[in-house]
C-alpha cells in the first residue's frame, strides 16, 4: 500500500464488485453470444483485480500466483466457448442466442 497510500482495500473491493456486476448484468441481458463471452471475461478480470488487491493487503504472493491460474483457465475456457459458438454458427448462421430455444420446460 506504500505506493498509493490513500487507496484502502475497500476501493479495490468496490471497483471489482462494480466490474463483476457489469459482467453479470451483461451475461443476463445481452443477446449476442460474443458479447456474453466478453462479459464472462470481465467477471474473471474483476476477480483478478480483487485477488491482487487482497494479495497486496496481506503482503503475500499466493493470490498473485492464483491470478495466473485464472488467466490460463480463462484462456482455455474461451477456446472451448468459441469452438462451440462456431459449431452453432455453422448450423444456424447466427450468433444471436434467441434462436437457441428448441427446448423449453
Amino acid at each position, binding site marked *: 500500500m506504500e505506493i498509493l497510500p490513500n487507496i484502502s482495500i475497500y476501493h479495490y473491493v468496490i471497483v471489482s464488485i462494480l466490474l463483476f456486476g457489469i459482467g453479470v448484468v451483461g451475461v443476463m441481458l445481452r443477446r449476442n453470444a460474443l458479447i456474453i463471452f466478453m462479459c464472462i471475461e470481465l467477471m474473471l478480470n474483476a476477480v483478478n483485480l480483487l485477488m491482487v488487491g*487482497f494479495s497486496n493487503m496481506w503482503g503475500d504472493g499466493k493470490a498473485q500466483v492464483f491470478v495466473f491460474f485464472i488467466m490460463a483457465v480463462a484462456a482455455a475456457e474461451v477456446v472451448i466457448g468459441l469452438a462451440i459458438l462456431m459449431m452453432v454458427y455453422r448450423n444456424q448462421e447466427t450468433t444471436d442466442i434467441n434462436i437457441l430455444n428448441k427446448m423449453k420446460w
Partner: protein
Amino acid sequence: MLQLMIFGGIGLLAMVSEVLGFSRIMSLLFRVGTLVCIASLFINYGLDITWFGNMMVEDRFSQAFILTTCLMLATWTFGFGRKIGEDEFRNDYIALFSFSMVGGVMMLSYTNLVMLFLGLEILSIPLYVLVGSSKRNLKSNESAFKYFLMGAFASGIMLFGIAFLYGATGTFDLHQMSLQAQTGGTFPIFFHVGMVLLIFAFAFKMAVVPFHFWAPDVYEGAPNAMTVYMAALVKTFAIASAFRFFFLVFGGEAGIYSTLLIGMSAVSMLLGNIIGAVQDNPKRLLAYSGVGHAGFMLMAVIVNGQVGANALLYYSVVYSLSLFLAFFVLDKVLIHDDFYWSIGDFKGLAKRNPWLAMSMSVALLSMAGIPPLGGFYAKLFMLKAAFTNGHYVLIWAGLIGSLVAMYYYLKFIINMYSRNPDSDVDLNLTLNYWDKLVMGFIGITLLILGLFPDLVSALIRF
C-alpha cells in the same frame, strides 16, 4: 494421486495414439487403466498422504469416493462404452473422459481452494465438448452452449467467493481457514460474502434449486451416454467436494450457513419433484428428479461428519447405478430421431421386450426408494442423519418429495405394463446378450446393495 497420474497418462496417450498408431487398443487401455486405478487405491488405503505441498491430501474420505466413482466409471464403460466407440473420434472421447476424471479426482482430494478451482475447471471443460459431441444435432448444440455459459458463469461466481474468503482469512488452505471459520477471520463481512457466493457456485454445479434451470435443457440435448455421465458422476463430484469443503472448514454443521443450505435442499426436494411430475419428456423428467435427488444428497452436506459421509457415499452409488440402468433402457427405447420424446414411447414396453420393462421398473423403484432395492436404504440413511441432528423441515420435505416422485415413477410403470403399444412401433425390440448382461448386472447389484447396505459404508469409516 496415483489415480490422477493414471487418468492423465491415459488422456495424453489417447491424444497421441492416432499419430503413433495404437488407436485400436486405446479403449482397451482405458478400461484396463480404470481397473488399475481401482487396484492402486488399495496400496495406501486408510493412510493420509499429502501431495503438492499440502494442497492435496489423500485421506479416507477421498479414497472411498475415488474408489466408488472409479467403480461407477467402470460400470459406465461396461454399459455405454460401446456406444461412444462407434465413430472416428473414439480416442478423443477417451481423452476427454480421462481428463474430466482427473478433475474429479482433484475435486475429491483437495485441501486448498486453488486445487478446488483447478479441479472444477478440468472437470468441466472436457464436459462442455462432450455435451456438444453430436455436432449436427441442433439440440446438442444448444445444450452445449447453455452448459458452457452456465458453467463459466458458475466458475466466475466461485472465483469471486474464493477471492473474498482469501481477503477475510489471508489463506487458501482449508486447515488454516478452519481456525478462523468461527469468527469469520479478520474481515467477517468478506467471509460472509465469500461463503454465500461459494455456496451458490456449488449449487450451480449440483443443479440445486434455484440454480437448477440449466439441468433439464442440458440433460435433454446431450447424447445419452454423456447425460448419464454428467447426471451420475459429475453430480457426485460436485456434492462430495462441497461436503469436503464444509467438513474441513467447519468440521460439522456449518453454523449460520446451514440455514441457507437447508432452504436450498428442502426447496429442491419439493420443487424438483413437483415440476418433474408435470413433465412428459423422459429425459427432462429424470433431470428434474435429479434435482430432487441433489436436494436429498445436500442433506448429507448439511449434517456432515461421519454419518453424513456414510449416507452420501451410499446414496451416490445407488443413485448412479439406478440412473445407469434407467438411461440404458431409455437409450434402447427412444430410438426414433424425432424432436419430441414422451412417456408415451414406453407404452406396452412389457409386451415389446420384458427385459427392458423389468430393468426400467427396477431402476425407477430404486430411485423411488422401495424396500428390497438400494434406494430405500439410501433415503433412510439420509433421513436418519437429518433426524439425529434435528432438521425436521428436511425430513418433511424429503418425505413429501419422495411421495410426489412416486407418482411419476409409477406413471412410467403403468405405461409399460398395462397399456398396449402404439400401432406404428416395432413390436419386437431385440437385445443381444451383452445388453442383457449389463442390465442384469446393474439390477442385481442394486438388489445386493439393498440387502447388504454395509458393503459400501465399510469403505469410509474414518
